[in-house]
């Protein structure tokens, strides 16, 4: 595996990609069911309409983006990234400015629009529970952090990203409007109390597997993964209490040869219709404000943007500014 890491580093350094020739547009996302839907809801109709072939690549890798831009060999034209990374990378000069004469931003949720990025879809971290496996389900973040009342393993997102630290602070009694700037000492102290009972999930599919097998009968999940799991027959209970939203963003790495096509693709992907299709198929919320009229009412009610009552917006600006420092501390704490 050492070799694989080195090969990855080499490929990254040289900006090599096996995926596409220059004429096609390369769209990179995180793989799995979400990218499947991004292909069917965005890319395929886009190709039918514009004649531009869209090649799917992945998974998103920030190391590769940096390597491609530095080596002036950008082979990813549009990339789905985390919202806080988009803000940070924009400032670091790794991204092209978006062309808002092509992309109509007046219809896009302004929470997720910057000069360098627009929202891709948005999701919530919610509390999920396998109802068949336990006698009672945790309803709040405080419940999820209470190992006396809810004994057993619980699962959380492994990577340093908005979500878990916020959940720990909310569980510890921090008021929702006093979350930022994050009190990291307090958050890690709270996380210490359940560390031995945490199983980390590294990707959506793993989170579903952990919940379905009751390896971890409850935890914090992307809401769309719970919707999908419920459809397979698992009795899933979702608590939206203080659900924490974060968004993915679409960005264009600096120096792409297909800038014009990239802008067109983003314009299409964020259009009301494409966003509605994406939301219908994933359970994530659309970032186009006009999408709701295109959607089935029942489905519409299950999306995060209908759960705004106690919703908490993760502060992408704060995260972008502190991403590295939090990340270093996060991984050191995990390894301890």
């Amino acid at each position, binding site marked *: *595996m*050492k*070799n*694989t*890491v*080195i090969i*990855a*580093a*080499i490929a*990254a*350094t*040289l900006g090599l990609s096996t995926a596409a020739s220059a004429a096609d547009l390369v769209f990179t996302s995180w793989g799995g069911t979400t990218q499947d839907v991004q292909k069917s809801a965005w890319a395929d109709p886009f190709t039918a309409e514009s004649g531009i072939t869209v090649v799917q690549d992945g998974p998103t*890798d*920030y*190391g590769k983006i*940096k390597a491609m831009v530095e080596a002036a060999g950008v082979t990813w034209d549009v990339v789905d990234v985390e919202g806080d990374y988009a803000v940070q990378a924009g400032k670091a000069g790794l991204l092209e400015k978006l062309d808002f004469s092509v992309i109509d931003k007046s219809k896009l949720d302004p929470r997720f629009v910057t000069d360098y990025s627009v929202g891709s879809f948005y999701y919530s971290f919610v509390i999920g529970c396998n109802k068949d496996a336990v006698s009672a389900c945790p309803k709040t973040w405080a419940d999820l952090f209470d190992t006396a009342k809810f004994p057993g*393993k619980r699962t959380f997102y*492994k*990577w*340093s990203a908005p979500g878990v630290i916020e959940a720990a602070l909310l569980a510890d009694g921090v008021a929702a409007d006093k979350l930022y700037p994050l009190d990291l000492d307090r958050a890690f102290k709270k996380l210490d109390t359940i560390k031995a009972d945490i*199983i*980390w999930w*590294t990707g959506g599919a793993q989170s579903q597997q952990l919940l379905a*097998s*009751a*390896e971890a009968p409850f935890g914090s999940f992307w809401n769309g993964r719970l919707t999908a799991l419920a459809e397979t027959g698992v009795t899933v209970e979702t608590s939206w209490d203080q659900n924490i939203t974060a968004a993915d963003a679409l960005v264009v790495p600096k120096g792409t040869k297909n800038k014009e096509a990239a802008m067109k693709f983003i314009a299409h992907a964020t259009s009301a219709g494409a966003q509605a299709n994406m939301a219908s198929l994933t359970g994530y919320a659309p970032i186009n404000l006009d999408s709701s009229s295109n959607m089935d009412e029942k489905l519409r009610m299950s999306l995060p943007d209908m759960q705004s009552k106690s919703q908490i917006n993760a502060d992408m600006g704060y995260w972008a500014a502190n991403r*590295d420092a939090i*990340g*270093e501390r996060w*991984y*050191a704490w*995990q*390894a*301890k």
Partner: protein
Amino acid sequence: MTLLTEPDNRTAAPRARSVRSRNFALTVPALVLLVVFFILPVVSLLLRSVMEPEPGLDNYRALLGSTTYLKIFLNTFSVSALVTIVTLAIGFPVAWALAIMPSRWASIVFAVLLLSMWTNLLTRTYAWMVLLQRTGVINKTLMGLGLISEPLPLVNNLVGVTIGMTYIMLPFIILPLYGVIRKIDPAILQAAALCGATRRQALTRILIPLAAPGMVSGALMVFVMSLGYFVTPALLGGTANMMLAELIAQFVQSLVNWGMGGAAALVLLIVTLTLYAVQLRLFGTARMEGR
């Protein structure tokens, strides 16, 4: 005599040199490929460790001055050592059995070994995850039999990493050991028995010493490969069992801190090369047949 041999020497020497240089010429394409696609990128990554974010040894100071990172180093070595010992303990009897088995049976065992080697690593690791987890087949069976009342913690910890990595490393120790043991003349063991050696003595004083070169070279290989292992510890271990390769991946991909990534990679590289040098020194290239 002198007169006769002199011309021979004169002609023989240039010929040997030209053969050598022709042979060297044949390796040039491979060397160029290696230099361009392997050496240069690796060197450039390593250079970043002393250049980013600013020139100096700050990255190394941060890496070696932090108890967290030192714990990861220590963990990498202890996991690798544990895996090597367990692999050797399981691999030796298997290699021995293979060497004395009728060849038809041996080829079936080899097929099983090689097939498992050729199966995708991720698939095999995920399979272990499903087998070992608290609600997995092993725990369910043991609980169904009434042998345990609570599921055993077999995954997301050191046990899981050791099981998963041992399984993956076994062929790498069985194959060289098999090669060495096959070459041991069975008559020597018979002679030992005739001379009154017990089975135990035959094992400890004849078989193991004769197989030692294979054991050491296999063990070193397993140890070195384990040092750089990524997927299996990441999936079967908890975050408290993090190993060096995972730390490097984190620096390069998640934190995009290539300076620290390069520093960690250089430390791993130095350790690996040192061990390799030890191996060459102890056994030389000629003794590593069967690899």
